[in-house]
């Protein structure tokens, strides 16, 4: 217990001098890094614009209200597209992610030396690139439209689903696998009867969770031309039709809240 002696009497202290000094030094480094980054970042900032921001905010705010409620008629079809992008993208992502998860899990991979690192790289690559970037690429490759959005969402979902699923596979009870194997089951039968039933609840949970995230992400994919309600957002922003923008925000917000509620209910029912 660190004790300091003040006026000849021992007094309890939280940390030893050495610890306090080290912690103080750590904080100093952090503050220095922050100040340095701040200065580099704001080198090109035009402060006149920043000072002007409250006025701009008030201006945009006054233009945004009231929302143009009648615009919702034009939003229903894009909303249907958005739902389809999210659902079909999730399905596509899952179809690709399941085999990758089995290749990446330490207890089911055919080779830890070659196959597993490749599978893990696919997972990291898919996870580190946002669906909006995938959409940007795909729009320039296969043209604007819903298909680019579906593929973008699918590619992004692979990493998320595969990562959580392979962690679930690695945590299964090996005794059940042993029991099924001892009946003379083949490799595919072991996976079918011993591994799949154990990871299935986790799998459904992951799928619904990802679907919920995908709804969120697919609402903005249209900003780069990949279909859905984002296309309307981009069009309205381009002509500075702020009441329409507000209306789109309201619709997006409602969709996100509803999908979150649905996914919470479904996960609660499964698990």
């Amino acid at each position, binding site marked *: 217990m660190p004790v300091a002696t003040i006026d000849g009497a021992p007094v309890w202290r939280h940390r030893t001098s050495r610890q306090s000094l080290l912690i103080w030094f750590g904080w100093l480094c952090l503050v220095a890094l922050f100040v340095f980054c701040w200065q580099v970042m704001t080198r090109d900032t*035009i402060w006149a614009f*920043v000072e002007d921001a409250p006025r701009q905010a008030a201006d945009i705010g006054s233009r945004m209200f009231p929302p143009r409620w009648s615009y919702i008629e034009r939003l229903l079809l894009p909303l249907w597209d958005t739902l389809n992008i999210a659902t079909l993208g999730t399905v596509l992502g899952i179809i690709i992610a399941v085999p990758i998860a089995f290749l990446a899990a330490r207890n089911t991979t055919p080779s830890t030396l070659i196959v597993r690192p490749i599978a893990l790289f696919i997972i990291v690559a898919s996870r580190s690139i946002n669906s909006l970037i995938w959409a*940007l690429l795909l729009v320039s490759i296969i043209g604007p439209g819903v*298909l680019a959005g579906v593929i973008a969402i699918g590619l992004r979902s692979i990493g998320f689903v595969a990562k959580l699923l392979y962690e679930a596979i690695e945590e299964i009870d090996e005794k059940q696998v042993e029991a099924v194997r001892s009946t003379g089951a083949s490799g595919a039968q072991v996976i079918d009867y011993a591994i799949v039933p154990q990871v299935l609840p986790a799998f459904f949970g992951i799928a619904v969770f990802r679907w919920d995230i995908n709804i969120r992400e697919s609402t903005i994919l249209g900003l780069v031309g990949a279909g859905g309600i984002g296309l309307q957002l981009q069009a309205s922003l381009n002509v500075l039709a702020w009441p329409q923008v507000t209306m789109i925000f309201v619709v997006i917000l409602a969709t996100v809240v509803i999908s979150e509620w649905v996914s919470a209910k479904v996960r609660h029912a499964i698990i």
Partner: protein
Amino acid sequence: MTTTTPRVWRRPPILIQDKRWRIAIYGGLVLYLIAAMASIEVDWVRVYTGLERGWRFVQGFLQPDFTSRWSDISQGLVESLTMTVTSTVVGVIISIPIGIGAARNLAPLPVYAVCRAIIALSRALQEIIIAILFVAMFGFGPFAGFLTLSFATIGFLAKLLAEDIEDIDARQVEAVRATGASWWQLVNYGVQPQVMPRLIGLSLYRLDINFRESAVIGIVGAGGIGATLNTAIDRYEFDSAGAILLIIIAIVMVAEYGSSTVRKWVQ
């Protein structure tokens, strides 16, 4: 004499026990998927002509060109990295009081309601939408991106911190309170030591997320590597785009590996 049993074991249904419900739900799902796929309009000629470009992208990814646009790439990277660090620090500093305020065992009801409302607002709006608004208000450049990421950090971190504070061991708090500690001392000696390891872990995780997001918000004008990437793709310079994507993947991998090491060391 052996009699063969006519019964064959069948696997029980996985999720829905009632047969009628099972048929109805699965049938509904299949019908929806068919309707959804039918509503996708695909211009196959456009897809076919695009395949050549797709092949060029794959080639660009395998043979990335780091040099010819290096000045743009490095500037975008510096913007992204500085934006990430500053926004994470500011976001964490703001989200600590909000997180404490949103924990029911520390804050009175009015404070709790206000803090939870702030968290809900920050979580409901996506980064891109916030970025659009901030770019319109503060002008183009990394400052708008910094504000966006700070705002998004608040919702994420304050929520998880509040849940963590609500889950702490109440006996330690009780013991500190029994010594006659004030509210501040209670937070400092009873709560903070219990949540600190997780707070550090979450901050590092958020740093990682903020870098990934900083690559995206550039698309709507909020600075960073995303703007450079957007330009490269618009010019069909897939080899430069491949280089940028590889750099992003590498940094995310390093950040993920580093933060998991630090988290293990902290706990």
